């Protein structure tokens, strides 16, 4: 997997790797990371629990799931359908995906809090219409070793010899391209303006 084709490790311009198809609309964050794994005060160990209850039955036996499919073992590119990540705001969901190798998610649409959490972690959530997602799903399923390259600058995904256009919110794209998705320092740069708003709000200072 190549994270960045460019020299600056803080930016996300191209992401390349193999893909994993996760089919279905409305896959919620309880499914991505069951609540019992939220009882950890750090995110460090979450990688092994992604989609846990969809992957294992109550006796711990493996169920059919792309995350259990060894052909997709090193996937960096998740390809999903509509409203992926709906439900709870738990950042544990994208954390568990990131810590199990996900570097970019291509989908028809994303729940907003989930997409915001991904943005904060530097994981692009890019969108494409159903027809493109279906073609990507089929291409990956028939050739799990297929190299997929997401180019955020050109807003395209290349899968083998095919190439498709992608959408990504302008704000998110610009922060990934400039390496400024880690927002705290950018927010604190305007400390005087923050204090000014604080002081003028009617329910605080004004």
């Amino acid at each position: 997997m190549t994270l960045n084709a460019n020299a600056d490790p803080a930016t996300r311009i191209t992401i390349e790797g193999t893909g994993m198809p996760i089919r279905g609309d409305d896959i919620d964050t309880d499914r991505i990371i069951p609540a019992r794994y939220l009882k950890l005060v750090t995110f460090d160990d979450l990688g092994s629990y992604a989609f846990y209850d969809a992957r294992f039955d109550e006796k711990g036996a493996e169920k059919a799931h792309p995350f259990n499919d060894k052909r997709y073992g090193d996937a960096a590119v998740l390809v999903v359908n509509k409203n992926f990540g709906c439900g709870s705001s738990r950042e544990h969901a994208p954390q568990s995906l990131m810590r199990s190798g996900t570097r970019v998610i291509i989908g028809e649409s994303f729940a907003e809090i989930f997409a915001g959490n991904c943005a904060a972690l530097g994981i692009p959530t890019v969108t494409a219409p159903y027809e493109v997602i279906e073609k990507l799903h089929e291409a990956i399923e028939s050739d799990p070793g297929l190299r997929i390259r997401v180019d955020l600058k050109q807003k395209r995904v290349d899968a083998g010899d095919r190439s498709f256009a992608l959408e990504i919110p302008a704000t998110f794209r610009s922060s990934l391209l400039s390496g400024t998705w880690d927002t705290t320092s950018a927010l604190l740069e305007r400390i005087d303006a923050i204090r000014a708003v604080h002081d003028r709000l009617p329910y605080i200072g004004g």
Partner: protein
Amino acid sequence: MGKNLFDKVWDTHRVGTLPSGEDQLFIGLHLIHEVTSPQAFGMIEDRNLKVLYPERTFATVDHIVPTKSQQRPFADPLSEEMMSALETNVRNHGIRFFGLETEHQGIVHIIGPELGLTQPGMTIACGDSHTSTHGALGAIAIGIGTTQIRDVLASQTLGMSRPKVRRITIDGEIGNGVYSKDIILKIIETLGVKAGIGYAYEYRGSAIETLDMEARLTVCNMSIEGGARAGYINPDSVTVDYLRGRPFVPQGEEFERAATHWLSLASDPDAEFADEVKIAADEIEPMVAWGITPGQALGVTGNLPKLSEVAKEEREGVAKAFEHTSFREGSSIAGTDIDVAFIGSCTNSRITDLREAARIAEGKRVSSTVKALVVPGSKQVKAQAEREHLDEIFIAAGFEWREAGCSMCLAMNPDKLSGREVSASSSNRNFIGRQGSPGGRTLLMSPAMVAAAAIKGSVADVREMI
């Protein structure tokens, strides 16, 4: 052209534009709880940052709290560690904490309005998707993730893009036995669980304006289940009357000045909206969400869909719902046997919810095949219910009467479904595994409907029991 409330409040809190093009938004009230905050404090400390305005953040504990006994240390060592981490963090950073030993502990979205921390015209953030609840008082309230909690702690601001605003008008009168829970389930069933992506919802119309504040909180609570990160209701006399005298609102003349300001924040009569949806209140029945998303819902007199009749784009989701629930296509939802009845959660655990459920339960017995529990949303709700002897009504009917917490809504505490149990639940999500058992099944409904189902042993039309 006038402005809607959302844009008025947003503009007041806008600090500037970030290099990414997003707005930097000042957060007037930050609420935290034990589950999503410890990593954020870790990030702050790793970077040697301070909490910028510790007096703008308030903490409580709700998700992991056992509801049978709040005795420390908790039996579960992970929960105890999480609790201790929060206690340490609030102490180190000077944050006001409504812990178990205080009289104000409770579910974060119950205590915010209850204490008057939540006020019209505020921007509110919390690491929990049901933060949309607070919009009922005319605030912009959004759920955020842990990295964003770090940002709010460090800068009291967030980077965000302004959503569009959809006006949802519910005119008419809801019938007896129909509640605000049914209104919001109807909205989600009508628009779907994805329609709100990119939107904030403004709820208005005569059926909304006649709701009391607690019922309004239920509506806004489930905005996120329709995909909308925020939902709100314009402040009016109900809002002002609700807030008067609460601990964190101004008192005396200052309150009257604040109230005048709050009322001025309501959307202007000529305000612009991205679009509008209208739903007739008198057509709304008591609702039941039967599937694996809150949008898979129907009126209690209805039948489950037949797959062949479901719209093509919904078919895969409905098929998955049948696969998980093992319910029969086309069968009536009324009469579906239940094993567990849960009255609680940030959606429906306020005093008015408990009163309505108690009205149904009074003088009756929970079915011998049902395990039923009532979990007040806060210590204040619990105390009020006990003053009104509602606890006695519930206990006499065979319900368990518990301590305040999130309980069986999300199963991060000992209250869980097991195996294939079917739960009638006043909570907000029927996702697979949500209530703690991967095979468990959740039917979402109003607290009164849950009480009716508990007594009948199966889904029942509460209108026949009033």
